[in-house]
């Protein structure tokens, strides 16, 4: 079946199978920043924004995304907020292997738009679904807190 997606502001008609999930379709279309980790809704590395909201692309049927707007990290490369988040991560030495970074950054990006003056506890709750396989959480948290302080 054919679906219409606006990916990173570009309109696309995509041929999909009704059983396919958005994650696989995006990777098939070469949006390789979208990672596949657990494929069961747990790790958050497959996070993308759908109509501006963070979702698990592994758990969204591609057919149900028909007509919606999808943003991957590629679409944010010129965005000042994206630059500020990645700089904060770099400065705190939290960049590690980076497998989990795209999903984490997208969720931090969404959190910034959604929460006003979150406490550290609020931040942790918002980011609870972003697991890091290299088990780095402390420098990431430091970076995210800094990012919120500077830009608040």
């Amino acid at each position: 079946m054919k679906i219409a997606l606006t990916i990173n502001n570009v309109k696309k008609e995509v041929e999909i199978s009704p059983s396919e999930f958005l994650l696989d379709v995006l990777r098939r279309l070469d949006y390789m920043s979208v990672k596949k980790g657990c494929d069961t809704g747990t790790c958050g590395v497959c996070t993308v924004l759908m109509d501006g909201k963070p979702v698990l692309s592994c758990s969204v049927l591609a057919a149900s995304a028909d007509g919606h707007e999808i943003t991957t990290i590629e679409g944010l490369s010129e965005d000042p907020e994206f630059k500020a988040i990645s700089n904060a991560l770099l400065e705190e030495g939290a960049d590690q292997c980076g497998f989990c970074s795209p999903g984490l950054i997208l969720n931090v990006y969404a959190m910034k738009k959604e929460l006003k003056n979150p406490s550290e506890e609020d931040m942790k709750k918002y980011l609870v679904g972003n697991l890091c396989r290299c088990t780095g959480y402390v420098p990431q948290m430091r970076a995210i807190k800094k990012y919120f302080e500077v830009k608040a």
Partner: protein
Amino acid sequence: MIEIKEYYRAKSVEEAYEKLMNVEGAEIIGSGAFMRLSSRKINLAIDLQEAGLNYVKIENNEIRIGGATTLGEIEKNEIIKESFNGELVKALQAIWSVQLRNIATIGGTVFPRLGFSDLITVLLALNTDIVLYNNGRMPLEVFLEEKIRKDIIVELIIKKENRKLSFQYMRNSFYDFSILNAAVSVDENKDFRIAIGARPGVASLAKKAMGYLKENDDIEEGAKIAAEEMTYGSNIKGSKEYREMIAPVLVRRGLEEVLK
């Protein structure tokens, strides 16, 4: 793996129901997030996002939540934030991750009567009715006992009353399933509602304890009665014995909180 032959976006509940009944192997799809974890073949997946079931509103002192509304939309809604001392939002936010709540629907959460569900426990502790397209309106507790297999959740209706709510759970980390959960609420007439879930079966009401607490003030005893009138089982998350031990504690904490 789920295998879907055909995908269809219904324009109304009527149309969705007609397809559900007339197409062999047709199924309603919420987000598909939970369905995909099982293995099934679906001939026709019926998507409800354009069927007009996305809303949270107040009518006649009742909170009405459309069956295709996502948990994320519900938790961010002002009506929900203000209701039941903010505890309903807290309970919603305990469900997995922001990214999952942005896709999982309330219909997909309630219809399968999942044993581990946190939301069902909380809704049961409030005066909640469910409206099904074919079977009509009924209290949630009746729906949980019925064997309705094919129907559509049109909406959930929560009575908007002055009820204090407390949601309690035991889990190994915040980001995990509840090993046991309990929700307690009370109004100004000492009308208590106590639900215990993830036992691991789907939540049910502790009717004896609710009756006892109407006449008596002994919380400790009320919690004990509630815990004892339930049956528990073992699964990968915890043993029957463990659940039996923590049940009265969770209920007591809930009672203490709503009576504070």
